[in-house]
């Protein structure tokens, strides 16, 4: 009798583990700078990616197979990002990689994924990631150039043609500065002051004093928190009355909290996520946006933001590729390239062999800060 029980238990265990083997999870790798200076990007991205994967698994996975997310923290360090990308590819044997969070890290990882032939969906904004197009590299963050165009269109509408730009001296600011210079001429705008500040600077009155003494009619500041909040405060302190434009790098509530009253009236381009509730029901992204904001709020107690949205889009693009039948790295790449009309958080994506960024300037809306909240301008 005892023997029979033992045998039965043995077979039961065998059967169960066989079942477990059959439904081996699909592994997706993620590289985010959860710590380090870009943690304001990496943390919501990591949280969002995990949330989406858990949601997919809770509803039975994709075609009966669960997803497994392997996340590593790059701490904003390009060298570390390359090492961890290799680890994801060789040790964890992932089907695709999402991230890294910053342009610098992404550029460092690109040679690795191109060589190993692994699809990479970057969450960084730099245009050079997908320009020129690389076979295995896609991105979900909107190109900086699109944000610049949004601002310049507004300036043109307000008949402003002399502008001062103040950009942060890091990758984000450098890319923004480049795009501002490229697009200025075609909107008839001349950049009368072109100045920078350090990412850790705590006082920009010197640069702004110079701008106050110039003939600029508007100021564009390009940076990520906390620098632009200091700029906003300094502008108010110096009594500068010029309209102040910011980049999508500060489109989170944190900026309003930091800049306080000084944030009032600032205009910036942003992904639609911060004005999700103000969008008309006809907007194709409305359902995705409202769903994302609400579930993030429920899980983490804060509103889901623009940056986490990049990870939401990346994971869902992979999900769609697998749903369309992709089971290998090569097939996922092919399916990603065919992705069209995907209404995500960052915009409506239409990838093709010539376009691995997939978005148009409609991915951005212009918002004004009013009464400590966002107000859609158009």
């Amino acid at each position, binding site marked *: 009798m005892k023997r029979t029980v033992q045998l039965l238990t043995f077979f039961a265990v065998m059967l169960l583990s066989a079942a477990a083997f059959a439904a081996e999870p699909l592994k997706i790798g993620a590289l985010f700078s959860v*710590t380090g200076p870009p943690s*304001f990007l990496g943390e919501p991205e990591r949280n969002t990616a995990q949330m989406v994967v858990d949601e997919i698994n809770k509803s039975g996975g994709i075609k009966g197979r669960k997803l497994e997310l392997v996340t590593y923290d790059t701490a904003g360090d390009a060298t570390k990002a390359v090492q961890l990308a290799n680890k994801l590819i060789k040790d964890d044997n992932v089907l695709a990689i999402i991230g890294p969070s910053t342009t610098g890290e992404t550029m460092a990882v690109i040679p690795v994924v191109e060589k190993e032939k692994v699809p990479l969906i970057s969450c960084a904004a730099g245009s050079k990631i997908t320009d020129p197009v690389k076979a295995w590299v896609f991105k979900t963050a909107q190109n900086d150039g699109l944000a610049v165009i949004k601002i310049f269109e507004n300036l043109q509408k307000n008949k402003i043609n002399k502008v001062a730009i103040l950009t942060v001296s890091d990758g984000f600011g450098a890319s923004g500065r480049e795009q501002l210079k490229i697009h200025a001429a075609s909107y008839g705008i001349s950049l009368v002051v072109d100045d*920078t500040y*350090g990412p850790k600077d*705590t006082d920009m*009155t*010197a640069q702004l004093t110079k701008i106050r*003494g110039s003939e600029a009619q508007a100021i564009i500041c390009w940076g990520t928190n906390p620098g632009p909040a200091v700029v906003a405060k300094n502008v108010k302190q*110096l*009594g500068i009355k010029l309209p102040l434009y910011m980049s999508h790098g500060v489109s989170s509530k944190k900026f309003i909290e930091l800049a306080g009253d000084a944030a009032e009236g600032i205009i910036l381009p942003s992904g639609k996520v911060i004005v999700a509730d103000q969008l008309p029901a006809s907007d194709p992204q409305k359902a995705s946006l409202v769903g994302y904001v609400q579930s993030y709020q429920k899980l983490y107690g804060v509103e889901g933001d623009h940056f986490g949205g990049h990870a939401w889009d990346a994971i869902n693009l992979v999900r769609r590729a697998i749903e369309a039948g992709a089971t290998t790295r090569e097939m996922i790449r092919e399916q990603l390239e065919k992705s069209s009309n995907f209404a995500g958080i960052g915009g409506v994506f239409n990838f093709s062999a010539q376009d691995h960024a997939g978005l148009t300037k409609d991915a951005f809306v212009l918002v004004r800060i009013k009464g400590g909240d966002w107000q859609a301008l158009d």
Partner: protein
Amino acid sequence: MNLSDQLLQYILSGLSTGAIYALIGLGFAIIYNSTGIINFAQGEFVMFGGMLGVYFFHKQGLALPIAFLLAVVVTALCGVLFERFAIRPLRRPTPMNMVIITIGGSIFLRGVAMIAWGKDTHVLPTFSGDEPISFAGATLLPQHLWIFAITILLIIGTKLFFSHTISGKAMSACAVNRRAAGLVGIDVRRMIMFSFILSSAIGAMAGIIIAPLTMTSYDVGVMLGLKGFCAAIIGGMSSGLPTVIGGLLLGVLESLGAGFSSGYKDAVAFVILLLILFFRPQGLFSRGSSERV
């Protein structure tokens, strides 16, 4: 807007940043003079002051003056613990050991702050509104006046402390000759502990008064610490007026540097630091090495 107005704005902005550097430099100098240690965790005390201020004000909902006081007291307490557990246990301290320990301590404190309060940047409200005050073509915030006032009070306070109280004089004595001070009955260890309390409290105040303007996060201490160190070097590690002037000079030069070309702002501080270490290691204002306090 003409050039002289711009110049005045640069100088005023520079003086207010410089006042903060001066306070941090003072913290460096006080510890250096009573222990011979360059405490590289000084910047972390500044960060702790700011972050604790934010914590008591926003999380605990206390009134700003009370949050201010509590933050200073708790930071001073951290200073005591730091001295007790990181500095004192060392039996035969060499300058190298001390430097490594204080750097290690600063990394530890930064880590603690990151875990306790996260990586976000935080801000305190200004002490009395943020309507800019015009002053001969340049503008200031009321908070800048607070910074100047508190800095001046602290400088006068430390000056009086060192020259008019028994404890202050005892600390000065330790600075001149620790062994002799011990022989005449001064409790050298207590004086060292005092110096840590004093400099961490001054650092904390600096951290709180700038938090409304520059904001604060777990990693602001690094740069502020280095700038304060630079101020102290210019002042020849004196815990009096020379360090204060060093801080103000640094702030103004930085501001002018940024006005000239913003890329060189931080470089200004470090070029000055290097030049002084090369050519006048005893500081810009002192003649010999006898006057340190």
